[in-house]
């Protein structure tokens, strides 16, 4: 046995796993994330997978990656550049090496660096030996051989199946290297492969072998440990944005007493919300896989007509298809939630990559004058809270609400301090079903509005005496009969707009964080929160003053937004689109804000935003 190795304490690390899409990199990453979370580190993840389900092995376009940033303090992004790269093959090395920090660690599966794979990765010589890696610390690990060796003698296990466990060997090695606990992973393996004992055994054995390899081999001289982060006291778990959206829906149902009905049509990266919610029927929730997006929106609206909270979930192209139904929802003034998990477009674009370019579609992508509330979560766990807020607004104002999440939030994970369920907003108080006539004549008028909220009554089928008809034809103000009267249409258009605008009185004022006396304000929305915040921190540590404002309500904007924006001499708006919030803000407030845009399918890096801010702060970058 080798001498005990030293453990070096570090404050944070960014690890990237990269391999073939069949190598199990996402599973390995997820598992490592969970083991890390349990230790109490703060963390953020960035899964990055190819659009192909099973791209040909070894190819450059088939590389699947998973990045994890964890630290002993609170962090805001999955990290700009990894410190450690696990490369399962040459293609993984080639596509990821450029991001690795100088001096960073490369753990390479040497078994995969043979001629055929090198050729597929378009290497003319072997990067492990030709000097390519001279600025890095290279650890060569024959993962295939070691895995096969560790699994020898397991009955009923083919060589192919054995080789598939090499990701678990890598996970074991990383677990040793970063002092992660092993018990959770072993339990997880037996749960996951319970029905195939030989596979479960193989995975556990490979995992243990990887761990032992780290401990004993001469290759590694020391391991690392990272203390738990000082997070606020409470119970935590990891959560991705999509899971948080689904949980938010469960919570919205529980806290409103209204049945949740979700209809969706599979589309990346939204499908997981449908998958997750479909498992929770014990809450009385019903889900439906519709024949298309139009049907999903229609079914949701039909459910809302019946007194449920109708929800539909989709990604970019699906939102296009739902537009007509959302317009109808606006016309008949019924509550409805529409989640759009934005992805890179137009059209199919890059379906597995992130973008925040559907803001204009959400804002204006319908015919006629058809305003509706738009919300955007800023982190994976905020997806939970945003659903409750969206449900509150939808139920109270009887309106469809669009929630703009994105691919980065959808699959990225972070620790989530679990809320006290009893302290979640009580949504049963924000609305009631109408059960009696509402007009002095004794009649029921379906478009007689609440004078404060301007919401119309929600009288649902099954209520005696309130039989009425709604539809997309313009209705007369109050009584709700079909009306082609020009003045009435003008009035109804303005009333619907005023209802949505009035929500500004009912949402939190825009709150600026950072330096009160800064000249520069950084304004953002949605998933750019973390990178923007991290960049602000960096420039402040360099002695600059900067203020940050991050919008969760995009329509209507918070009532004080104009005043806030005008109180800074310079406003910078970074977005993963070509300036959509920028345009809205300029149009609405006549503020000469500056945009910074990038649309590469990836989230911003804190470092690039730091340079942008330094530029605006007049400092050298």
């Amino acid at each position: 046995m080798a001498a005990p190795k030293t453990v070096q304490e570090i404050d944070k690390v960014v690890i990237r796993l990269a391999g073939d899409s069949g190598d199990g990199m996402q599973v390995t990453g997820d598992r490592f994330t969970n083991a890390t979370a349990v230790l109490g580190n703060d963390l953020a993840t960035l899964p990055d997978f190819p659009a192909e389900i099973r791209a040909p092995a070894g190819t450059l376009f088939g590389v699947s990656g998973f990045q994890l940033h964890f630290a002993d303090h609170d962090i805001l992004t999955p990290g700009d550049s990894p410190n450690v790269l696990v490369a399962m093959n040459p293609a993984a090395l080639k596509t990821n090496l450029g991001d690795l920090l100088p001096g960073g660690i490369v753990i390479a599966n040497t078994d995969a660096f043979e001629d055929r794979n090198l050729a597929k990765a378009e290497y003319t010589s072997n990067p492990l030996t030709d000097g390519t890696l001279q600025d890095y610390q290279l650890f060569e690990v024959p993962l295939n051989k070691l895995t096969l060796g560790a699994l020898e003698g397991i009955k009923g296990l083919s060589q192919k199946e054995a080789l598939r466990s090499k990701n678990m060997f890598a996970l074991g090695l990383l677990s040793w290297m970063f002092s992660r606990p092993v018990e959770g992973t072993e339990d997880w393996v037996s749960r996951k492969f319970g029905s195939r004992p030989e596979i479960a055994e193989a995975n556990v054995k490979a995992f243990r072998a990887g761990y032992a390899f780290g401990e004993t081999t001469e290759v590694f001289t020391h391991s690392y440990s990272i203390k738990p982060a000082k997070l606020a006291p409470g119970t935590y778990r990891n959560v991705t944005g999509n899971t948080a959206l689904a949980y938010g829906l469960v919570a919205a149902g529980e806290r409103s007493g209204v049945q949740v009905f979700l209809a969706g049509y599979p589309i990346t990266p939204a499908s997981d919300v449908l998958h997750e919610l479909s498992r929770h029927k014990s809450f009385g929730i019903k889900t439906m896989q519709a024949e298309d997006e139009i049907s999903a929106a229609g079914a949701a609206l039909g459910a809302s007509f019946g007194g449920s909270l109708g929800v539909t979930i989709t990604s970019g192209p699906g939102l296009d298809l739902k537009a007509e139904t959302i317009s109808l929802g606006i016309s008949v003034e019924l509550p409805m939630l529409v989640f759009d998990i934005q992805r890179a477009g137009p059209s199919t674009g890059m379906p597995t990559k992130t973008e925040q370019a559907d803001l204009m579609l959400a804002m204006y992508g319908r015919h006629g004058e058809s305003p509706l509330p738009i919300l955007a979560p800023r982190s994976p766990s905020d997806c939970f809270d945003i659903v409750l807020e969206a449900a509150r607004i939808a139920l109270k104002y009887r309106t469809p609400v669009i929630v703009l999440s994105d691919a980065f939030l959808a699959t990225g994970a972070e620790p989530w301090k679990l809320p006290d369920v009893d302290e979640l907003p009580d949504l049963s108080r924000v609305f009631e079903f109408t059960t009696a006539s509402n007009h002095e004549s004794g009649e029921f008028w379906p478009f007689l509005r609440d004078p404060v909220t301007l919401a119309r009554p929600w009288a649902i089928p099954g209520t005696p005496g309130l039989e009425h008809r709604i539809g997309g034809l313009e209705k007369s103000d109050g009584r709700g009969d079909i009306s082609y009267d020009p003045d009435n249409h003008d009035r109804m258009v303005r009333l619907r707009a005023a209802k949505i605008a009035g929500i500004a009185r009912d949402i939190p004022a825009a709150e600026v964080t950072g330096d009160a006396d800064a000249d520069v304000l950084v304004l953002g929305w949605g998933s750019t929160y973390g990178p923007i915040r991290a960049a602000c921190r960096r420039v402040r540590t360099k002695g600059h003053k900067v203020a940050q404002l991050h919008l969760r309500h995009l329509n209507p904007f918070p009532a004080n937004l104009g005043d806030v924006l005008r109180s800074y001499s310079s406003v910078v708006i970074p977005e993963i689109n070509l300036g959509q919030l920028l345009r809205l803000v300029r149009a609405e407030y006549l503020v000469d804000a500056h945009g910074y845009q990038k649309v590469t399918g990836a989230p911003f890096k804190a470092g690039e935003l730091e340079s942008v801010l330094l530029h605006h702060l007049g400092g050298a970058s």
Partner: protein
Amino acid sequence: MPLTKKDYTSDQDVRWCPGCGDYAVLAAVQTFMPELGIPRENTVFISGIGCSSRFPYYMETYGFHTIHGRAPAIATGLSVTRPNLDVWVVTGDGDALSIGGNHLIHAMRRNVNLTILLFNNQIYGLTKGQYSPTSELGKVTKSTPFGSADYPFNPVSLALGAECSFVARTIDSDRAHLTEILRKASKHKGTKFIEIYQNCNIFNDDAFIALTGRDTKKLNQIRLEHGKPVRFGPNNERGVTASHDGTLRIVDVEEVGEDRLVIHDERALDAAHAFALSRLSHTPTGPTPIGMFRQVDRPTYEELLDRQVAQARQKGPGDLNRLLRSGDTWDVVA
């Protein structure tokens, strides 16, 4: 006090063209509704867009006039979440079979508990006279001055192909027959698809004259009766026999003998028999079957979903606290 037709008549002006077949269907439905004994507040009419889709405004029930072609989808969402309601869909041939074809077939496939009234006038009424997916090949309209080049759907064949559990055809002007079909539909659980030949006297007058004309109707209406040989004609002199290839043929009974006639079985599990009957005529210019084509029992979509919820709740209702705390959690202490 029992309800009457008047109780089902809303205070809205009915605005179809004078002479339109829609009036007759509205009157028949309003007259039939009290017979159902379903509280008026539990009845919902949902429609798409088209002349016929104005229908819900005229019914003193709950109603939802939606968007073109999507009524089956919207009705599905309502019926799934409120299975105790009596949900009707009113649609036209353009609405249901062009823009809404997808939703229609999927509602039928799922066996959603809906009564779908398809008003087939073989034309687009509301947009003033373009040909529809049931118009005959070569139809000359504003959008097809040289005749349409697409072949029509046969709605009954389509419904059968889409696994619909209740398929019938009737005629706007035949109040007794229409009511009889509605009565049968009211006893069926699942999707009731009822094609109603409806005369659009403005843009496609007399499209169904073969079945409705005083002189021609006896010659051409093949009234389907469960368990009886398929026969028709003024003196029941014509009948339907099966060919070796499985198709059906119209024959003179005297020539082939009564024993050779097919016996109508609307309850046949295999839709082949009903389908073959539906192929006897395509657009009704000659002998055309009218009545019940098929009625089979199958669990509804609503029942299957309710069952899943009930099963999931056997171990008790969901617990939000437990759900949020599922998976790996850890505690941070102060």
